[in-house]
């Protein structure tokens, strides 16, 4: 018994890096029961809904002071850090499992919170999502539009509340018009980058035996059963090969009559080698995220105050030669959009063209570009982790302050309102950031060389073809480190 437990623990600990020891949580009775329980998702959304309501209220009626605002502190300090450094790299789209934004839409569509009853009919028009929009381009552009207002979002609580309320209303309305989670899949700006970076995560839902799923005719994981609504994410769980569009809602686990779906802890970055599903709209997301990581580090953590002023559309110049709010913001927007859509992908395309030339490749440069763009996922995520580390280490004490005074009305509910600002581990920040970038680079290089072998088959050609891509990844890493510590 003890040996068995020790062996399970060893499997669990090695499952993050080894492909031999993937650890299936459904092997444990406790997790299997929880995942199959109908109240599971409702229960995990509830605490988040509680926080979401406070966030929205505090933005509208609470203090407009950023570091005293529950909206700014909980969303842009706590949530952002947790999302980019813990939830997504370790647990894939765990955030989507607990997100309150589409919750009301789900409950309306299902005509209830928990129960699945016989004779069930979906509520709402239940229309299919328009075919021309069945891609990530709308998500990319919506995300980029919101990202342009980063300075306002992170400093003015009311802007955060307006954004969250808009997404909430949009999620609910779209649920009444279109089938299932069309909002999460094709509109949600957070879902776009979570899907991309969940490919790196050490967590997955996959069929245990694919042949069993293929043979199984009734496909309850899609169509639903007496105990499940079926996958709301418009995917076929029996054919899952990558994390991108799996929101971990566990409906497929509840539905499968053969218990043929596993919830596994696995090695990092496994999905980067999955060839199916690779597409231009998806890899553009990787370029947008990489460009934004570089720009945001420069704007919010760099020494260039004027760059930050440009991001503030309401900025009033206090010295003669400064640009006005609109002028500066136009330049800021141009930098954000051109870097994300033209400069970063354009430079990478040139490296891909060089790669193809060196390998004497036959296919199109566009294909090389699409395949190799997946190498940007580990280094991009590492950049975002490096960006998020100082945010929490410097500002964590504000979380305690706003818990006691969520609206900034001078309350002190838990006696933590007046805890002074106390940043921690400041000396360690650059080392942690460099460590994150180096780990990201190692993964990018490792998986990039594997992708190169997929593209070119021949080992020698693959090595030559990957050389320019490796140089690009190293240059990006140097740029990150320079922005962090230079």
């Amino acid at each position, binding site marked *: 018994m003890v040996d068995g437990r020790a062996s399970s623990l060893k499997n669990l600990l090695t499952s993050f890096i080894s492909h031999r020891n993937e650890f299936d949580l459904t092997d444990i009775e406790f997790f299997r029961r929880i995942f199959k329980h109908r109240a599971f998702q409702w229960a995990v959304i509830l605490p988040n809904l509680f926080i979401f309501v406070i966030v929205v209220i505090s933005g509208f009626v609470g203090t407009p002071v950023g570091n*005293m605002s529950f909206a700014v502190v909980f969303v842009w300090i706590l949530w952002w850090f947790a999302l980019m450094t813990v939830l997504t790299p370790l647990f894939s789209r765990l955030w989507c499992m607990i997100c309150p934004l589409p919750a009301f839409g789900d409950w309306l569509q299902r005509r209830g919170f928990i129960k699945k009853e016989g004779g069930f009919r979906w509520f709402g028009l239940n229309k299919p999502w328009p075919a021309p929009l069945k891609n990530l381009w709308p998500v990319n552009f919506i995300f980029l539009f919101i990202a342009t207002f980063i300075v306002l979002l992170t400093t003015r609580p009311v802007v955060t509340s307006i954004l969250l309320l808009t997404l909430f209303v949009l999620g609910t309305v779209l649920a009444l018009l279109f089938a299932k989670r069309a909002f999460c899949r094709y509109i949600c700006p957070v879902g776009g980058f979570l899907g991309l970076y969940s490919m790196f995560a050490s967590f997955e839902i996959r069929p245990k035996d694919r042949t069993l799923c293929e043979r199984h005719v009734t496909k309850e994981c899609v169509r639903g059963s007496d105990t499940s609504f079926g996958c709301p994410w418009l995917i076929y769980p029996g054919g899952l090969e990558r994390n991108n569009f799996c929101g971990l809602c566990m409906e497929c686990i509840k539905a499968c009559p053969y218990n043929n779906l596993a919830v596994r802890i696995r090695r990092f970055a496994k999905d980067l080698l999955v060839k199916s599903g690779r597409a231009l709209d998806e890899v553009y997301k990787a370029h947008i995220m990489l460009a934004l990581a570089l720009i945001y580090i420069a704007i919010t953590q760099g020494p260039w105050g004027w760059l930050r002023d440009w991001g503030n559309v309401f900025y009033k110049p206090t010295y003669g030669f400064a640009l006005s709010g609109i002028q500066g913001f136009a330049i800021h927007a141009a930098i954000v959009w051109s870097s994300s859509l033209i400069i970063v992908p354009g430079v990478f395309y040139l490296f891909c063209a060089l790669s193809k030339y060196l390998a004497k490749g036959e296919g199109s440069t566009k294909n090389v570009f699409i395949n190799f763009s997946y190498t940007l996922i580990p280094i991009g995520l590492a950049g975002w982790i490096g960006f998020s580390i100082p945010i929490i280490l410097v500002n964590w004490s504000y979380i305690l302050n706003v818990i006691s005074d969520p609206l900034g009305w001078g309350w002190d509910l838990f006696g933590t309102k007046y805890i002074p600002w106390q940043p921690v581990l400041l000396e360690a920040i650059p080392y942690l950031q460099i460590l994150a970038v180096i780990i990201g680079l190692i993964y990018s290089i490792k998986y990039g060389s594997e992708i190169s072998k997929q593209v070119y088959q021949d080992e020698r050609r693959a090595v030559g073809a990957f050389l320019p891509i490796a140089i690009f990844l190293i240059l990006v890493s140097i740029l990150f480190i320079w922005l962090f510590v230079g």
Partner: protein
Amino acid sequence: MSKLSKTELICLLIIIGIVVVMPISFYIYEDVLRVNRAAAQPLEVHIFAWASENGGWQPNEIHLKLNVKTKFIILAMDTAHSLIIEELGIDTGPIPPGYRKEIEFIPSKEGVFTFYCGVLCSADHHFMTGKIIVER
């Protein structure tokens, strides 16, 4: 529409509690705090300090009774502020944004006095003034 089961009804009540009751309770709590404070003090004045560009002092005209113990509760709303009334010898010192400071005093002189912010709080800081009227 089918009848709600007991479980669904409990779920619905919990959601209503979070979405409707909780926000209302914030206001009730704030009002209770105010009432308690008012019961403990004969005269209590809440003053919200905004930079001039954001509206300045709210209220910017305050009527007080001569020789009646008074408590000012000053909340710095958008940036650091302070409240100074030279003639009555009051200076709160800087109040960080999002914090409140309480100050008790007895207005012992009749007349109209100017109060102002003593922290260089914005470009229009010098316009951040208000009027105290002390009457019998």
